[in-house]
């Protein structure tokens, strides 16, 4: 059971966790990404490539489902204007094996960082700036290539 939502709306991590707990796996891992309010950030704007995003994220989830014995995986990624404290992304996985749940959760968030067609723009009071991709994020995603 896997599901991907690309949406502007907020989501409820509690409802997502409850659904994953209900799959009987024994272990549920999750990661929630939130907009940090650093450097007087007013808002983060997430642009994406609609024709590609859903399919591409589903591919990443299928990759995770094939690498680990998961009973379920859930990914939610928001786009649009998000203010500090707002949730951006949710990854939840469940498995009979805690290591499978934890590793696949880390894999999914690492891959979303470098393989999902989203771009972040920071809005400050007096300027805007596109967030630069970090080499360590690409390296993190690539590090999964050699494993599993």
């Amino acid at each position, binding site marked *: 059971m896997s599901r991907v939502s690309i949406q502007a709306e907020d989501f409820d991590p509690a409802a997502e966790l409850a659904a994953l707990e209900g799959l009987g796996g024994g272990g549920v891992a999750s990661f929630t*990404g939130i907009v940090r309010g650093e450097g007087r950030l007013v808002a983060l704007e*997430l*642009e*994406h*490539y609609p*024709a*590609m995003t859903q*399919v*591409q994220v589903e591919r990443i989830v299928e990759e995770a489902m094939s690498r680990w014995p998961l009973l379920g995986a859930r990914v939610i*990624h928001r786009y649009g204007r998000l203010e500090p404290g707002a949730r*951006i*992304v949710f990854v939840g996985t469940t498995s009979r094996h805690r290591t499978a749940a934890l590793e696949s959760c880390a894999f999914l*968030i*690492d891959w*979303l*960082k*470098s*393989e*999902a*067609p*989203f*771009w*972040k*723009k920071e809005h400050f009071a007096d300027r805007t700036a*596109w*967030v*630069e*991709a970090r080499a360590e*994020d*690409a390296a993190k995603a690539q590090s999964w290539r050699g494993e599993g």
Partner: protein
Amino acid sequence: MRQLTLMYFAWVREAVGLDEERIDLPAPDVTVRDLIGLLAARDGAYAEAFADPARLRAALDQRFVTLDSVIGEAKELALFPPVTGG
């Protein structure tokens, strides 16, 4: 001559001032890098946006590809900076 839809995202979109446009494909065996060269040969805004291919990433028909990929039968080429989702 076949047409190709170009799509731009993030600062590439802002630099050229367009979400997308259609161009005539010079030949089916041109690469993404060739097309970036053609775009860089246009006016000031394009010249600046496409001057350095190393800053760009690409997707052909919604799949990530390297800049040396051949356009072939693809209908849509997206050009953008490295992604920053998650």
